[in-house]
């Protein structure tokens, strides 16, 4: 899944600009973003992860029982 680090996020909104599913929302009050998605199934690296300037969005494997 794509994991968003609130601590690292600069609120630059690049991820919103490039998310092909329009799945990321701006939290303007906190100047950060929130996301819930199923990844970009046809991409090796999800568009938001590939374009996040400072690794605030990263891909992490998670097991189903988490």
């Amino acid at each position, binding site marked *: 899944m794509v994991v968003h680090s609130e601590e*690292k996020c*600069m*609120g*630059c*909104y*690049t*991820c*919103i*600009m*490039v*998310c*092909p*599913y*329009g799945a*990321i*929302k*701006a939290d*303007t009050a906190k*100047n950060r973003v929130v996301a819930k998605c199923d990844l*970009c*199934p*046809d*991409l*090796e*690296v999800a*568009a938001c992860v*590939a*374009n996040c*300037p*400072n*690794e605030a969005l990263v891909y992490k494997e998670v097991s189903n029982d988490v």
Partner: protein
Amino acid sequence: MSKYVIIGGSAGAIGAVEAIREVDPTGSLAIVTEESILGYSRPMIGDYLCGETPLEKMMYRDDRFWAENHVQVLAGRNAICVNFSNKYMELDQGERIVFEKLLIATGSKPFFPSIDGTDKEGVISFITLPDAKNAKARLERARRVVIIGGGLIGICAAEAFAKKGAKVTIVELQNRVLALLLDDAASGIIENAIRKIGIKIMTGQTVQRIIGKSANDRVVGGVVLNNGETILCDTVVVAAGVRSRIELVEGTDVKVNKGILVDEFMQTNLPDVYACGDVAEAYDFISGENRVLPQWPTAYQGGRVAGYNMAGRRTTYPGGTVMSAMSYFGIPVVAVGMANQEEDGGYEVIVAHDASGTFYKKVVLKEGVIKGILFVGDIERSGILFCLMRKAVNVEEFKEKLLSPDFGIVSLPSSLRRDVMSEELT
């Protein structure tokens, strides 16, 4: 001797280091940069100036990045000249570094208009962290600030100084702020927000000269506009755009226009010499021409492509275009491609906005293909349009739906859905 050498330590360098190390984990790699701190966000220096963001939060990569990637970092150092035929460069203290592959990622420098008085104390630029630190040291004294230029850098500086209580005036040559990115309507929304916090905007004006204080002419006392008006101030921020830092290749065999010309592999006309970021003139997939795009996403991506090719993995740059995501005065903005294009000469413009002015959305089409996207106030789902634009999908059939609040992949004709989502996007 270093197998790979990168001049510059910002977005392009980060992309290149990551790509080189993916292919070649051990080849020697050195970075020469005049800055002492590498890889920080330039757009965030405004937040740094007004104290909203600490330096740690501005870093694109953590402290260990360079060491973990076995990069020899020569920070605070200047490359003086490059001998391209014998493949070595000379540094400021006379050392030579021989290289096999070179990436020029020197970025850009502020453009100073040729007016009198730019050498006075109190005239500053606002691009780098040292610029921001310099501005911060002036905050106590900077009570009246004139910003020359209402572009990205000027607005960023204006917002920061205003938040610290300074009386700020923006002087802009065009008839609106952010004229290169936004159209009249979008600029209007931003201008309202700017004025609301007490910043004065003077459009259609230029600063004719910067004058000194009556007590000390070497220190900024004000500016004189082309209409003859004088604005008293203690600080002038020159934010009249940037120019590629091409000094290292001037007079050499490396081909230059406004920036260093690069091909689809981010290579210059010389083998083994690459360029990316603000210093490079690379392919724009919207205009179909090479152009300088001084912005983070293209610098990083160009750096990656250059890095792969330097390390021997043939990789093609898909082309960049204007990609600006930002937030001013709490208003989020996304401007992509020909965002400020008006309906004219074969361009069709579709607009959606609400009466209260909380959002404004626009898409620019040519022959059914998206050429520009402008979202102000509400930027959600702009990425879907970017995807359609990047893939040059003909949207004629469903163009009325593009700006509706529930537009999504499901809004596409089913025949298109699979095609649109099935290719590499980035």
